[in-house]
């Protein structure tokens, strides 16, 4: 290839624009979806409150919350309650790989809400949680 200014521009753009997906983009895309499904304004404090809220379950003793496995602080590594396996921090500020893949976010919101709350989270709750996590600095 001739390395003249006509090649340089597309080459520079290719490098600059091929930045890997960021958490911000993926989360924003999901928030837009939730809004289109009827969610109102998202609030990180509501997300934080939901994070800590204890839920009881008919068949098991004790309570469950997001913090049960992820700890009170999503910037810290968590631990699976039963297997003791270490879980990477969920806050993108502490873990750049977190909240980058929208399919993965959807899958784990579904599984974790079912386990913790006993039901799927509403679009409002999901948006509040993601806003809380994204805003953690």
């Amino acid at each position: 290839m001739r390395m003249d200014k006509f090649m340089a521009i597309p080459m520079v753009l290719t490098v600059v624009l091929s930045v890997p997906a960021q958490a911000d983009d993926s989360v924003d895309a999901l928030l837009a979806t939730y809004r289109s499904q009827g969610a109102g304004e998202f609030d990180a404090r509501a997300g934080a409150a939901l994070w800590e809220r204890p839920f009881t379950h008919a068949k098991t003793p004790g309570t469950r919350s997001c913090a049960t496995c992820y700890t009170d602080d999503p910037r810290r590594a968590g631990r699976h309650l039963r297997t003791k396996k270490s879980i990477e921090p969920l806050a993108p500020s502490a873990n750049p790989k977190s909240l980058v893949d929208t399919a993965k976010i959807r899958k784990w919101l579904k599984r974790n809400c079912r386990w913790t709350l006993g039901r799927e989270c509403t679009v409002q709750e999901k948006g509040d949680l993601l806003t809380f996590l994204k805003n953690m600095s």
Partner: protein
Amino acid sequence: MRIFLTVIAALFGSLFIGWQGLASVDDDSDSHYEDQWWQPRPGVAPVANPEYTEECGSCHMAYPPGLLPAESWRTMMAGLDDHFGENAGLDAPTHQSLTDYLVANSADVSQSRRSRKIIRSLSASAAPLRITDLPYFRHEHDKIPPRLVAKNPDVGSLSNCVACHRGAERGSFSERDIRIPGFGRWDD
């Protein structure tokens, strides 16, 4: 000269074969023959499937398929909606490709040292769902007191291999690489 060289070659050849014979002697204590330079392979074929690690290694260690027979894996994959009390359901294509991977690399297919011992320790139709229920596994762990495992907050249960087996994720369960949290090395 040729005869001399032939005799020397035959001599060394038979010594080598004899040596290999010793190396493959089957006994219960693994430690003597592990990680010897002529047997660099780990005891179980390590997981080399990123999809499996991602889907089946999030909540617990991604257990090497060579630790259970194919029938165990088939039954497990057929019941993911109640996977030891949790819903671990997968979409259909992922479910199929992971089942194929597990069955193709299961203990009854694998030639790894521990896979073969696991199968030998099982009756023909046995297909336990828990690795910890394998007779081979029980034998290998039967001297460990509960305070080091169940009552150890950093371990919790025998299914938490990586807590003590530092080489587990590369398929090695060699005694030399064991470090029990809060306790140290294990020497049988």
